[in-house]
């Protein structure tokens, strides 16, 4: 209990400032049903590590923890003998109480869920959290260029899925 680790704000301020954005990110990463659990895990892990945190960029720091929690969640989920939900299983009722990223139903959602983890995280940070590429890079520990590439590659795949979906529905 010394005064050496100056300038770390009270944890409550961090929670108030970032909880909503982290929640949006986790909805995009693990889906609406598990997002709140992951959100709690994220902030508890953050609280545990907080006295050693670097005050300079706490937003990037908290999103780094959230991304790890989302990855842990996927590992735990794939370890379970439950198959990844197909588009038909993501019922409209479920989607309506916490709408997917653009509110247009489950097709885009499952396309996002099908992206490789880095691209998924980058595209969710860009469009659900509204981060700039510089911030995405900080949150993901990559260069700004890599962040941009991840987002663009994700968008290319999402466009392709949208196209396939259109074809399939003809």
């Amino acid at each position, binding site marked *: *209990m010394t*005064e050496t*680790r*100056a*300038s*770390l*704000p*009270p*944890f*409550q*301020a961090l*929670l*108030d400032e970032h*909880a*909503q954005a982290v*929640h949006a990110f986790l909805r995009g990463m693990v889906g609406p049903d598990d997002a*709140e659990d992951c*959100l*709690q895990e994220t*902030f*508890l892990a953050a*609280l*545990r590590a*907080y*006295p050693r945190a670097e005050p300079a960029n706490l937003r990037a720091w908290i999103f780094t923890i959230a991304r790890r929690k989302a990855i842990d969640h996927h590992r735990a989920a794939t370890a379970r003998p439950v198959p990844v939900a197909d588009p038909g299983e993501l019922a409209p009722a479920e989607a309506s109480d916490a709408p997917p990223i653009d509110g247009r139903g489950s097709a885009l959602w499952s396309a996002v869920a099908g992206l490789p983890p880095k691209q998924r995280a980058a595209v969710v940070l860009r469009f659900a959290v509204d981060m700039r590429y510089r911030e995405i890079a900080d949150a993901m520990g990559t260069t700004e260029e890599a962040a941009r590439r991840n987002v663009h590659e994700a968008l290319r795949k999402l466009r392709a899925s949208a196209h396939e979906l259109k074809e399939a529905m003809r």
Partner: protein
Amino acid sequence: MTTTLAERIAARAAAEGLLDVAYATYESPLGAGIVAATPKGLVRVALPGIPEAEVLEQLARAVSPRVLEFPRRLDEARRELEEYFEGKRDHFELPLDWSLARPGFYRRVLRATARIPFGRTLSYAEVAARAGSPRAHRAAGSALGANPVPIVVPCHRVVRSGGDLGNYGGGPEMKRFLLELEGALDRS
């Protein structure tokens, strides 16, 4: 949503021993203030009018940055404060955490002040003497000005020897209000 999420996080943090500083607001006839406690005890009573952000930043800097709103840990403190302001309580039974009080003379002054009974007053020189340094009345004033737990450690009961009430962190009107509440002004 965010409020209840924050509550759930704070509850889990408390259960896991991660909640170093819990805080809540209390109500008084002079407005709302902040109370904060560590697992050891009450660490801060901020008088009405002190900005919440300032109180929380001080706690983060000087006690621990693991600060969360968690009223449950402050139920007893808030109850005792409310009873005091209603005139139903003349002493506090709260364990104290002295982390925010400078060790040495400052703490001795605060401990001496904590023993002044309800409705009574002492002069700065008398408190300095009880803290072991009869001539340090100015330093006693500084110690009382830095009191992290006013009302509970009743620094308002220390007044100037001439009858003037002297300074108070919450302003002289607040000091007068508290002494009137205790009937201390009629007595002297």
